[in-house]
């Protein structure tokens, strides 16, 4: 039940061509240290699933800039001009979903269901007519669940069994991805013994977690970014 492991072994589980969900809405929740190791090990042809592309030079943008990523499934990459350019020149395939729909597709996989029925964007250009069905007297869209081989994200605190808590807005997609991916690798700066996290405050129960890696989190990615606060 002890899932604590070293980062090299955890990331070495990932083969070329893997589908990987990456936690984080912007920086909070992004597993910068796990990403760094993935960059070092150099797995290629990856499909990444993340809310955004981080910003140029940090997080998954580094994997994309390094040519390790074949496809990005995301919701908004407006804060990363470099990745927008790579998309526009055709070197990166990008697939967009509305933010809550991406979250719900992942959560639906996490619940062991195959898809859900929605009306979001039903008559917009994001909907392919073949996904629309007539059901109970109205038109609805079938949105398929989105599974992945791996999920990588950051947790503010974890015990060695893999019970997790997230800090503030670092929660975002992480608990959903934990449920949806086959193998779930978590980095945390605060690794504690089982029993240290009150069972009522656990955000992600250990059953959804495969590997826990203790990290340092002293790098600049984990610190404040300039210009994003009031002077």
């Amino acid at each position, binding site marked *: 039940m002890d899932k604590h492991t070293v980062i090299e072994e955890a990331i070495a589980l990932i083969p070329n061509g893997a589908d990987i969900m990456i936690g984080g*809405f912007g920086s909070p929740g992004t597993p910068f240290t796990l990403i760094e190791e993935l960059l070092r090990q150099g797995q290629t042809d990856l499909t990444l699933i993340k809310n955004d592309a981080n910003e140029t030079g940090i997080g998954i943008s580094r994997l994309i800039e390094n040519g390790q990523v074949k496809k990005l499934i995301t919701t908004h990459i407006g804060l990363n001009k470099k990745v927008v350019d790579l998309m526009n020149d055709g070197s990166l395939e990008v697939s967009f979903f509305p*933010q809550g729909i991406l979250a719900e597709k992942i959560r639906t996989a996490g619940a062991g269901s195959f898809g859900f029925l929605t009306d979001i964007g039903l008559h917009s250009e*994001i909907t392919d007519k073949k996904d629309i069905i007539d059901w109970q007297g109205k038109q609805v869209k079938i949105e398929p669940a989105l599974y992945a081989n791996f999920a990588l994200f950051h947790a503010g605190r974890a015990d060695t069994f893999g019970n997790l808590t997230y800090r503030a807005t670092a929660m975002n997609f992480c608990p959903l991805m934990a449920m949806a991916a086959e193998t779930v690798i978590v980095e945390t700066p605060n690794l504690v013994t089982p029993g240290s996290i009150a069972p009522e405050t656990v955000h992600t129960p250990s059953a959804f977690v495969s590997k826990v890696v203790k990290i340092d989190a002293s790098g600049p990615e984990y*610190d404040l970014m300039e210009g994003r606060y009031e002077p």
Partner: protein
Amino acid sequence: MSLERILKRAAHEITDGQTINLGIGVPTMLVNYLPADRDVMIHSENGVLGAGRKASVATADPALIDAGGSYITTRPGGAFFDSAVSFAMIRRAKLDMSVMGAFEVDQEGNLANWKIPGKFSPGIGGAMELAQKTKNILILCTHQDKHGNSKILKKCTLPLTAEKCVSRIITDMAVMDVTKDGLVLKEIAEGLTIEQVVQATDADLILGEEVRSF
């Protein structure tokens, strides 16, 4: 200047007890125009209810941002939650109002603010669900683009974010309401005439019973 006029006027739309979402960009700046005692619950789609003003270096927490990436403060009685719950809140219409920007908005209340084909397509973000599911959509935008073309149209030309979703539009020139009869001109900016506003607007404007200045 025109931005400040929009924000000052928009601040009056926010009343005590409301739960609102402020879109990335200009709408987010609205926080700074609200009276300090305005008792509102601001939702940010990355998983916050109870967002406050931008944080300072001293108060900023690297793990606490709004959907635009700025470090924020929170008010007492707030909560954090995951993205599925955040959008459940939106789709279940628990927000009283969403304040959004626009590339184009038309007299039927159609809204285009996510994509300019061939020029700007960074993704959808939360806009589509907010626009489609929030009870009241307040649009804040300049009345015309930088080439002097009206953003307030008879019919949107860009891909829509959502159909017939807009309640009210506040620009640097006017306040307009989308009604079942069409787009009603409610207020004009101080110093302008009704004729000037009509002239600057592509949409058909219905003159309200009383058109006030703001």
